[in-house]
């Protein structure tokens, strides 16, 4: 077999896109599909461009009450008492609740599929009764005839606090004299280590080791060790959190909400309210962005409790400041990373110490951070220690490739420094060190076929890399990144209609066009048009358990379920045709062009047989149910051109290209959209976004005015190059797409800033004051 190095590639426009949308093609290998790889109009599109689509806040019910949540003004305090009596007396108020109105929770770990949650901590996060651990921590809630009445009443609730000193920095929080946030937290050494016995803020310590690290560094010609910091940032979805609940007299709770995972909401609500899951129905509304931040419950159990107390449906909406104060974010971090290379520029060893903010309760993405830090490169000897540390900030949640963006800043800028010191081209260095099938990560896992090398190859061949960048204060940087992706549980049911179309129902909420990409996979198997499939996302009573729309899993796993459902339909239709023709069903084949063929040249089309179902035994429903576990990882490499204003430190992005191995692009427009959107978030994280806290632990910039996400005027066109190294774990080769594009941008920007100015930025965000400070100190 030819080695990867002798294969011939070219970069060309991806059909149907704009000139900036390209793909890497290997000579002699082009995928051949009818529906996969085309760009149909998404099925839910018309509703979304006409304002008819109903999101979480759009639900209307008769007798609906509006609620308001009272939140802590302190970053760290013990709750001495809560007196709600005055609020309850306000005319128009129908219910007031605190943690005392919820069942008490104990310290049990719940497994949410993609991670674990301690039910006591979640109970305390939803409504605190012991301590408040961040400003904005919820303590009580009111339901009333209008939100204004509820807000006025909530202000009459008297909460007595014993204010405690906050701790906001991970290095301080792990110190022996730091105030301890949760007296139940002990350091858990993972994987398969022992648990400590003293109260601490350090909830977890992950430790990975491979090879002989000291010998690896001893064999290196060049060793570079650097320290990095990043600040807390938010997912920044445009739709605030919202939940509406009705607790019916028959004991059934219905929750209307926008979420990434209706089944995860069902599980959390049931557990926190101590009712069986079958008593909770979650109706997923359209969701206005999530990026990992709409998996945990905040408002849903509170709305349900208020409904129980009032006997009426209750809606709770967060405003934007609540969203910043109390949801999300992804951790700030401190990282120390060291890499050694030999004289030929091959990595000999790597070492990392990573400290991530957990926020109020344990649960930062430190473990994936550890597993991603050297994931792009073949590192023969490595040692990684990662710590999950509680601080007085909101409980952190997943944010697109959680943990990987942090660590890529460290590794990828050190790699750039090595290239600079050794005089090696950054593309060549990455081609030489890129992981390939069979390489082992520091955590011991070996890679299946992956496309890291191919993404670098595409960079090398791209117009962007080959076009010179000229002018003062300008520079070009590249950086790579990795994300695991995920498989998990998905269910699809597909009914054949008499007119030859298919109605598909699924449990995956659609955040970015997944209805279309799931329907297209069913259409491809059946040989019908994507437009002849009608996909609908249904509630938790109407389909089987489906994991979150997250982890870049939906197109892969729910797609697999759709493929299975399509195959089930094919098998059933073959039986029907056999019945019509009076032959054995093994003699019938479901062939190309949606035609069934039998012996003696008999044929019948999908459309025709769809019209004969009631005469041949009744409607046909195809079922697909999977717990997918061969999702394959994703790699991306980005190219950034920047210009740095030497007087202000402002960084302008001049040109930006995202290269990514997606396995196979089902709907290229939405694949490109994920690549572009992820890159934009990464650029915002790189240049601007950060939580500003006062020493008292108060968040100072809880608005889109002061927490500034990129606008269209801040960004250039974002070019894309889709690389398709098929994932053997999926019939069409789909890998996940959504997460890895956020990983490389901060490092790519930092490397570009260095090439523009000679200054290495090792702290995010690289905002004008910080860049200017570095520029001035390097001059001095």
């Amino acid at each position: 077999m030819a080695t990867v190095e002798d294969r011939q590639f070219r970069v060309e426009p991806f059909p149907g896109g704009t000139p900036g949308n390209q793909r890497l093609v290997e000579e002699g290998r082009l995928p051949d599909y009818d529906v996969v790889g085309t760009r149909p109009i998404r099925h839910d599109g018309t509703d979304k461009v006409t304002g008819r689509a109903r999101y979480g806040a759009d639900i209307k019910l008769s007798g609906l009450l509006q609620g308001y949540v009272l939140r802590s003004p302190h970053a760290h305090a013990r709750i001495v008492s809560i007196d709600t009596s005055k609020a309850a007396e306000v005319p128009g108020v129908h219910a007031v609740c605190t943690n005392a109105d919820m069942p008490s929770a104990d310290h049990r770990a719940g497994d949410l599929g993609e991670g674990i949650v301690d039910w006591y901590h979640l109970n305390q996060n939803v409504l605190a009764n012991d301590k408040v651990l961040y400003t904005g921590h919820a303590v009580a809630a009111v339901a009333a005839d209008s939100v204004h009445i509820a807000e006025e009443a909530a202000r009459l609730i008297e909460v007595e606090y014993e204010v405690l000193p906050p701790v906001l920095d991970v290095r301080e929080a792990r110190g022996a004299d730091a105030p301890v946030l949760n007296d139940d937290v002990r350091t858990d050494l993972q994987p398969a280590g022992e648990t400590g016995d003293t109260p601490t803020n350090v909830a977890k310590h992950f430790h990975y080791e491979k090879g002989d690290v000291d010998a690896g560094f001893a064999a290196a010609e060049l060793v570079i060790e650097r320290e990095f910091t990043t600040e807390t940032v938010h997912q920044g979805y445009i739709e605030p959190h919202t939940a509406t609940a009705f607790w019916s007299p028959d004991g059934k709770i219905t929750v209307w909400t926008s979420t990434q995972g209706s089944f995860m909401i069902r599980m959390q609500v049931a557990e926190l309210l101590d009712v069986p899951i079958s008593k909770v129905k979650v109706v997923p509304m359209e969701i206005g962005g999530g990026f990992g931040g709409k998996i945990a419950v905040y408002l849903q159990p509170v709305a349900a409790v208020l409904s129980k107390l009032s006997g009426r449906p209750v809606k709770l909406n967060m405003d934007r400041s609540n969203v910043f104060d109390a949801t999300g974010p992804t951790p700030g971090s401190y990282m120390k990373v060291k890499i050694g290379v030999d004289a030929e520029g091959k990595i000999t060893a790597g070492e990392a110490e990573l400290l991530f903010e957990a926020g109020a309760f344990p649960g930062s993405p430190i473990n994936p951070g550890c597993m991603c830090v050297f994931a792009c490169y073949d590192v023969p000897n490595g040692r990684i220690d990662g710590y999950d540390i509680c601080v007085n900030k909101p409980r952190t949640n997943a944010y697109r490739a959680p943990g990987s963006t942090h660590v890529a800043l460290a590794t990828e800028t050190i790699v750039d420094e090595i290239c600079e010191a050794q005089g090696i081209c950054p593309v060549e260095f990455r081609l030489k060190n890129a992981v390939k099938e069979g390489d082992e990560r520091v955590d011991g896992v070996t890679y299946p076929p992956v496309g890291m090398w191919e993404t670098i190859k595409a960079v090398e061949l791209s117009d962007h890399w080959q076009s010179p960048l000229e002018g003062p204060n300008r520079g070009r940087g590249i950086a790579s990144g990795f994300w695991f992706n995920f498989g998990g549980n998905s269910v699809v049911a597909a009914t054949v209609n008499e007119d030859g179309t298919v109605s598909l129902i699924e449990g995956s909420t659609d955040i970015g066009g997944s209805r279309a990409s799931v329907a297209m996979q069913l259409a491809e198997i059946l040989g019908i048009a994507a437009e002849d499939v009608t996909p609908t996302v249904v509630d938790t009573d109407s389909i089987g358990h489906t994991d979150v729309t997250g982890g870049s899993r939906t197109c892969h796993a729910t797609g697999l379920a759709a493929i299975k459902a399509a195959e089930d339909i094919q098998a059933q239709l073959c039986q029907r045709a056999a019945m019509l023709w009076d032959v054995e069903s093994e003699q019938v084949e479901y062939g190309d062009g949606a035609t069934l063929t039998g012996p003696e040249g008999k044929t019948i089309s999908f459309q025709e047989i769809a019209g004969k179902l009631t005469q041949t035994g009744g409607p046909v429903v195809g079922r697909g149910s999977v717990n997918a576990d061969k999702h394959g990882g994703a790699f991306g490499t980005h190219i950034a051109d920047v210009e740095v204003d030497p007087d202000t430190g402002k960084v302008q992005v001049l040109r930006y290209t995202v290269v990514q191995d997606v396995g196979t692009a089902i709907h290229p427009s939405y694949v490109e959209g994920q690549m572009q959107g992820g890159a934009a978030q990464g650029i915002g994280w790189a240049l601007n976004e950060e939580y500003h806290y006062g020493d008292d632990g108060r968040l100072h910039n809880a608005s889109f005015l002061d927490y500034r996400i990129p606008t269209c005027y801040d960004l250039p066109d974002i070019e894309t190059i889709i690389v398709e190294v098929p994932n053997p774990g999926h019939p069409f080769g789909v890998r996940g797409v959504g997460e890895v594009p956020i990983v490389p941008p901060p490092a790519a920007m930092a490397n570009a800033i260095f090439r523009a100015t000679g200054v290495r930025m090792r702290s995010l965000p690289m905002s004008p004051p910080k860049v200017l400070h570095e520029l001035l100190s390097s001059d001095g």
Partner: protein
Amino acid sequence: MAKQRIVSTSINGNPVEFLAAPRQTLLEVLRDNLDLIGTKEGCSNGNCGACTVIFNGRPVDSCLVLAVEAEGGELETIEGVAPTDGLHVIQDAFLGQAALQCGICTPGFIMSTKALLEENASPSEDEIRFHLAGNLCRCTGYDKIVRAVQQAAEGVTN
């Protein structure tokens, strides 16, 4: 609550009268009193553009307008954009260019685009980006939105 007032206005070409308390924003009244839920709320303080409507020919953040200020004015919301027999060219362009992912920002972008193209039928890319900078989208990175506005501009001029 303070006394409600009757406000007379025109919405999407139809005369409408509604009751509003002095503290209520136009956004709140559109969504809660008039069931025009296509106008979205992202921040309630004028920073995201999800609530954009056209008020007397100009795009405004409806969360920053008091409902009583609509007295005697002409309002256009996302519900009034499509003709009865199909979609507006801007809506077609947003669909064709896949310019939306979650779609929560889309009504606001369409209203801002409509206002832009009514004022400047063939804007440059820089003008498009400048004009739309008050509308935030967290999903798309804006590239496909800009393409959609360019496509719509061609449709408007042709």
